[in-house]
């Protein structure tokens, strides 16, 4: 597992409690799993994505990511309509590990309420949150 300093948490992304990232691109929001999540899960073997056209609220699950020994739900960092899903993940789920912020993206959302983005962590605050969690577990 990576140490806190090894984690890649890019500046221009926002982060959710469960380590989904969200990035505003024009009028859509692109979503994926952050480096911390993919590192904790280790090799991802399966990704389940929603249907294009589904409308899902912020905080509700939109998909499932599985590694060999773990399975996690992925939650909407912001609510809205799914306008695209990354079908490449069906055959190459490992992209989430190899390129979490780029080729490993999961969904594109047409957000209902853009201000929901402001409720998310920034690079700095998510780093703090992770640090807190790691220290607590280490005790």
């Amino acid at each position: 597992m990576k140490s806190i300093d090894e984690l890649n948490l890019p500046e221009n992304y926002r982060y959710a409690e469960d380590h989904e990232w969200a990035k505003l691109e024009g009028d859509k929001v692109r979503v994926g799993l952050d480096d911390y999540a993919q590192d904790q899960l280790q090799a991802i073997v399966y990704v389940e994505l929603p249907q294009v056209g589904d409308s899902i609220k912020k905080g509700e699950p939109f998909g499932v990511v599985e590694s060999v020994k773990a399975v996690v739900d992925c939650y909407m960092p912001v609510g809205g309509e799914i306008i695209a899903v990354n079908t490449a993940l069906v055959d190459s789920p490992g992209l989430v590990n190899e390129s979490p912020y780029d080729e490993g993206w999961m969904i594109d959302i047409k957000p209902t309420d853009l201000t929901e983005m402001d409720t998310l962590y920034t690079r700095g605050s998510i780093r703090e949150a992770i640090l807190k969690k790691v220290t607590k577990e280490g005790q």
Partner: protein
Amino acid sequence: MRYLPHTDDDISAMLKVVGVGSLEELFSTVPEDCRKKEPFNLPDPLTEWELNRHMASLADTMATMPEYKVFVGAGSYEHFVPSSVLSLLGRSEFVTSYTPYQPEVSQGTLQGIFEYQTLICRLLGMEVANASMYDGASALAEALLMATRITKKKKVAISRLIHPHYREVVKTYLWPTGYEVVELPYLESGRTDLSALDGMAELAAIAIQSPNFFGCVEDLAALREKASEREAMSIASFTEALAYGLLRNPGSYEADIVCGEGQSLGIPQSFGGPSLGIFASRMKYVRSMPGRLVGKTVDMAGKQGFVLTLATREQHIRRERATSNICTNQGLCALGAAIYMASLGKHGLRELAKLNYDKTGYLKGRLEEAGFKVKFDSPTFNEFVVEFPSNFERTYKRLLDQKIVAGLPLASYYPELNNCYLMGVTETKTKEDMGILVKGIES
């Protein structure tokens, strides 16, 4: 006691390391009011030699071949099991190991189960089979639950010609879910009346058994059609796996799930258990399947090996959202079935299945010649229903005294089939045995 290796010296040395004065003191965390005060009221221990006699005395009361001629199938079939199968299955490396969580020291079990999965797929014409369920009955219940998960519908239709016990298990399993179970009636031909489905909507699955409880081969093509029309899953159940050594398999009729009982594949009857729940489906549904799966892979040096895989479906990872709660299954029975299938080989399997079919045909013919009515005219495998005259019960009892069990009376399962008996024949019955039976019935 020979199973407990500790000497008195061992015990005192170990207590010292633990830091307590006596065995009783080890239980200091058990509160006083939780303690058992009196000794067990259980029989005094027997020596191995005393127990030999006791167990033999129990086993001796049981009616088994060759002394008894039992013409009953109904979900448990008397087939010959080669000594080689039993001997291999008794190897303690297979018997005394746990579920293969550590693949490097469980390759025997894992390859054995991978081979079992493959042979079952070939037998049933399916793409994926799991490492086993408890028995044919719970396999059917799990199949129906799987269909409700996939289709997100809450009603299932099952044929009344599915083994009555299986239907009871299905109802028990589905009871707390509130899902509706509709039973499909049967026709005079001894097949399920699929026209009863007309007008029925919102079905998750339609399940029929073939050969069915009356031994009749069902129309699996019609099942497929009816299921497709309703966007329901088609489930083919069975109790006599050997039938698919001869009959067209359910996979060739595009069944979505095939599940049933594998006891016929080299597993002793053992008063109904342990047996083998077989469960097979399509790769597109694999992530909704219950039970364990073994997959082929390679090790760090590139050498072929096997592991439990797709485990995220299972209870130890997905917990309350698992595809089933099953953990321990019938692993050793699955291995036994694989050894049996490997021993038979393709031609042996076909020959044995045909021999079973022919022997059944022979008895059917003899009984018809003797003037008894074969109740249903559909083709059958290993079992068929005969209607005897109304005073047959007396004859049945007399034959029991002669150590012949002349079929299973059906009235308690199907009240409308008073005086009807389900006859079961396998390769263990000789022409002479069947002659004795027919003579006994006639006289």
